[in-house]
């Protein structure tokens, strides 16, 4: 069970189940997001998170057009 190839196959099987769930959203249309096999399908969600979801956030102030120097044009 520690075999890496075996683990990847398990992750891949789990990916297929997860993708089926994600594709089952209500009110699907031609424009709806599609989920399926890609280069990350043999990673577990935890591995994917650790490798690729590495951005840190800092709390940003709420945007107030009257207080910032940014020009805003509204139609």
């Amino acid at each position: 069970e520690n075999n890496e190839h075996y683990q990847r196959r398990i992750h891949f099987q789990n990916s297929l189940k997860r993708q089926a769930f994600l594709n089952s959203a209500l009110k699907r249309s031609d424009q709806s997001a599609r989920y399926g096999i890609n280069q990350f399908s043999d990673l577990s969600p935890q591995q994917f998170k650790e490798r690729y979801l590495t951005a840190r956030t800092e709390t940003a102030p709420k945007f107030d057009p009257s207080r910032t120097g940014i020009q805003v044009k509204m139609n």
Partner: protein
Amino acid sequence: YPPKFDWRDHGIVGPVRNQESCGGCWAFSVVEAIETVSAKDGGKLQQLSVQQVIDCSYENEGCNGGSPVGALDWLAQTKLKLVNEAEYPFKDMAGICQYFPQSHTGVAVRNYSAYDFSGQEEVMMSVLVESGPLVVIVDAISWQDYLGGIIQHHCSSHNANHAVLITGYDTTGEVPYWIVRNSWGTSWGDNGYAYIKIGNDMCGIADNVAAVFL
């Protein structure tokens, strides 16, 4: 502002990059924004060095992660000039910061802004048109399996973890959406791009939004 806008249509967005096994999305998003704003301001579109930011932005953690706003703050304070990608190429791992004299050709950040636009995505569109592409941090958990189409479900707004670049938007169809450039190569998503519904702070796209000024 127009109902549909994309900085790619102005020919000033570079090709989609691939961060490979490096957790440096924070650096990719920032450098890509600087490239386009530099071209928008009259420079030529060139690929700038992501590796320089990964190696030299000491308050971040290289390929182990970092903050786009932290990187912008560091760039604005130090006025460090980002050199061309060819001079300091991407290595898929962090290394020792390579020094270039201030006389060396490069692009420096004058200033930046970072705001929470949740509930104000229409204003965010206007800022994108005026200022250039926007660096945002999203919850990309469900992006592991994304192939294309407009993300409208399965994306929380309370778990931001991945930095990307908004290059445009389209409100002409049934579902208005943001056009998002990712850094996971062209085989991911729609040739490296994702589309996110506008209006519900989907994936937390409006929570942490940064613009660059050169």
